[in-house]
């Protein structure tokens, strides 16, 4: 999946390959140019997986540090973007593991999860959309991290199964199993009535 529009390096001569080579030689500015193109998407992913802005900011710094420390070992088996996303997923899961002993799940903030506006601009429809958004937020927050990662990567972020499995660091078969489990759980938590009446 490409980065968001407008986030590629501005200088066309400054290709990802040349930035990567310079970063691997220890050039921090090149590393920042290279990774900065994906920083917003990485941060959005962390927000979705962690549901907490301050924690996402902290983990985002850690992701970039890990990437910087490991970039000399990056051999291009995957795209740089996929490699960076994989670090982000690992760091998010690490943060969630630390959090796991807390008695209550940390909810994903409703502000972080936005449904598209209803084209009808109908207030009752908007209220239903809001209800669905809240229900989805609660359901996603209650998923075990591996299932949440699967559904966020595939359905929210829109990666193909192959890409998402690569980022999650598991086989496609294992990824599909997690995705389907996650969908079943979210469907059960939100309820068919809500899903069909709002989204159907």
């Amino acid at each position, binding site marked *: 999946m490409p980065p968001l529009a407008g986030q590629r390096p501005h200088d066309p001569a400054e290709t990802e390959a040349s930035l990567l080579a310079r970063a691997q030689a220890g050039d*921090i500015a090149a590393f920042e140019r290279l990774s900065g193109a994906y920083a917003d998407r990485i941060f959005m992913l962390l927000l*979705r997986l962690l549901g907490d802005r301050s924690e996402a900011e902290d983990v985002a710094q850690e992701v970039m540090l890990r990437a910087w420390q490991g970039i000399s070992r990056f051999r291009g088996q995957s795209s740089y973007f996929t490699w960076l996303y994989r670090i982000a997923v690992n760091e998010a899961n690490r943060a969630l593991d630390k959090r796991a002993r807390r008695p209550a799940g940390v909810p994903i903030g409703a502000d972080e999860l936005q449904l598209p506006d209803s084209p009808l601009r109908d207030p009752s429809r908007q209220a239903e959309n809001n209800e669905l958004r809240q229900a989805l937020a609660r359901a996603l927050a209650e998923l075990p991290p591996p299932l949440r990662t699967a559904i966020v990567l595939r359905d*929210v972020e829109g990666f193909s199964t192959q890409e998402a499995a690569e980022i999650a660091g598991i086989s496609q078969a294992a990824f599909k199993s997690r995705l389907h489990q996650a969908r079943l759980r979210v*469907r059960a938590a939100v309820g068919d009535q809500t899903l069909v009446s709002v989204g159907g």
Partner: protein
Amino acid sequence: MGMPGRPGDHQWSQQHLSHYVEGELRPRARRRLDRHARNCVDCGRGIRAMRALVYALQGLDGLAGVRAPATIFDRVRLAGAGGAPSHHA
């Protein structure tokens, strides 16, 4: 009144609704679910609900205005100030 189709069709269909909307079922399995869902209110609604769920989740991709914090490279810079960590081209 029992569930339509072969015994076990209902439970099997409920477990495979996500595979169904993902288009992952083989033709024979898809036909099995289609056949059952035609006469099963629960599974017919389940298909609509699963499609609506995937659509709603895709709609959550509404964070286009979110920007990474300006501090995102702070630790890299701090680490870099102490010397690059064993980089080699």
